[in-house]
């Protein structure tokens, strides 16, 4: 078991090294990509600022608190992009018949597909989110206790697992419908955008949905409430703290669904 683990870790290391080298071949593209991502998130933050300019607050959230909430989700999204973002275009591999090569090698297919790319472009997300998070935290004069540090790390881990799990779930749809990229852009991207604003502005049904069914609320909303000292009840406080647990469970469920889809998969190739 331990030997297999260490072999897999070494393999992952080798494969992502190849992926990083490939992305570094086009150095200009590499920097533009990072800059592009950082700029597009900064654009969303500027829109937020403009929205709040006249009204000052949205359901008791000031601009800096909103920025904190937004940056928290971009931070874990950045980590998620590094490992899982390429899953969204798995449909291309299935349609072209090139997916089969992940099945005939002596590596676990899920692991193999995951190790295929290590998206360094995501440093744009990390760059933006870390700067924005620090700016917001210093403007809000947040006091960081030990528990807060754990909540923050937990939110990054939980957010990565929840959003990664969702991408995997969407890619698994390609096993049944041969479509995934489009599903990402029309379902997950808009749904993710909604979570950039505090959940409390949306109707009850939606709050319930993203808490108990698709746990988006654990990516940034509940942890941010704890970190910003907005938790009004003990249960909300707990919700903010258990983000990594929810994330791991959700990720595992999505992974099982992906494997179920893989077992059903019949090659499109000739």
């Amino acid at each position, binding site marked *: 078991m331990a030997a297999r683990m260490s072999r897999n870790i070494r393999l992952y290391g080798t494969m992502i090294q190849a992926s990083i080298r490939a992305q570094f071949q086009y150095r200009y593209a590499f920097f533009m990509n990072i800059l*592009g991502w950082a700029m*597009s998130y900064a654009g969303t933050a*500027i829109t937020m600022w403009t929205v709040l300019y006249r009204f000052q607050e949205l*359901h008791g959230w000031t601009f800096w608190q909103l920025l904190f909430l937004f940056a928290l989700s971009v931070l874990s999204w950045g980590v998620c992009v590094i490992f899982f973002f390429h899953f969204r275009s798995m449909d291309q591999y299935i349609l072209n018949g090139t997916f089969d090569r992940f099945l005939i090698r002596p590596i676990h297919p899920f692991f193999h597909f995951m190790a295929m790319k290590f998206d360094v472009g995501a440093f744009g997300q990390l760059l933006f989110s870390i700067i924005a998070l620090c700016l917001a935290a210093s403007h809000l004069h947040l006091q960081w206790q030990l528990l807060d540090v754990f909540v923050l790390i937990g939110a990054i881990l939980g957010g990565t697992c929840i959003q990664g799990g969702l991408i995997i779930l969407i890619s698994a749809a390609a096993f049944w419908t041969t479509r995934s990229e489009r*599903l990402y852009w*029309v379902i997950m991207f808009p749904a993710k955008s909604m979570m950039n604003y505090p959940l409390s502005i949306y109707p009850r049904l939606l709050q319930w949905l993203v808490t108990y069914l698709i746990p988006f609320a654990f990516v940034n909303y509940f942890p941010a409430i704890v970190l910003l000292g907005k938790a009004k009840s003990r249960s909300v406080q707990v919700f903010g703290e258990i983000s990594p647990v929810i994330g791991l469970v959700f990720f595992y469920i999505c992974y099982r669904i992906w494997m179920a889809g893989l077992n059903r998969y019949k090659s499109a190739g000739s």
Partner: protein
Amino acid sequence: MTRRLRMYLEFSRKSFQRSAVYRFDAWTRLFANIIFLFMWGFIWYGLYAGKLTTSGTSFHTMLSYILISQALSGLHGAATPLWEIQERVRTGDIAMEIVRPFDYPLKVLFSDFGSMFFYFLVAILPLYASLGFFFHPVMPHTASGWLLFLLSAFLGYLIRYSIELTFGLFTFWLVETGGVEDIFYFSVSLLSGTTVPLWFFPHWLRVLAEWLPFQGIFFVPDSIFVGLLSRQQAFQQILLQILWICITYGILRFVWRRAVTKVVVQGG
């Protein structure tokens, strides 16, 4: 002249038919449009909570603004997106279009008319007509008001088309277009007033937006729709839109001419 027009209308017909074949894509696109409408509806509802009028605009007017704005931007979404033009340049598919006996920028425009018309009929019209039935939005109540709005919305689309295609053609010079794309999308989403109308902007940003062509894309038609412009102001804004079309279309033609020679150089 009429023969040429008939040829371009044939492109519209073909792309209308193509959209009908891929109608599943239209439904999924509509789904995303509904989510964004829902999101901005609730953001504005939250902002207005407790305050009935801010800056002289009631929530009812604001909701109407968001409705018409999302309807228009949904409609624009059926046109050829920026990344597709970039992809055509990058893969070299565009070279095949250049050797054919038609003008490529005009072909894109007329094809977009076809796919947008299809999307309007099957998605935008049914959805927003029923939403209008429930919410009773503020809208033009005279035939001439409607005409002004439709004209302005059409001109707004032409501005967007000119700018978007120009940005797409930059791919001829830049291999990687990441940053260019983001400048375009940011400008269209903020400075055109799709989600935040210009009257809520800080003064300096408003002045900046008024000096740029983007406000002609959504802000002008939306404001005419919710009746925030007097007849005379509406005429002025429409004239300004026409001026911007002349400028942006002029730039598009210039960039296109340069791009074509670029292909010849590479194709040797």
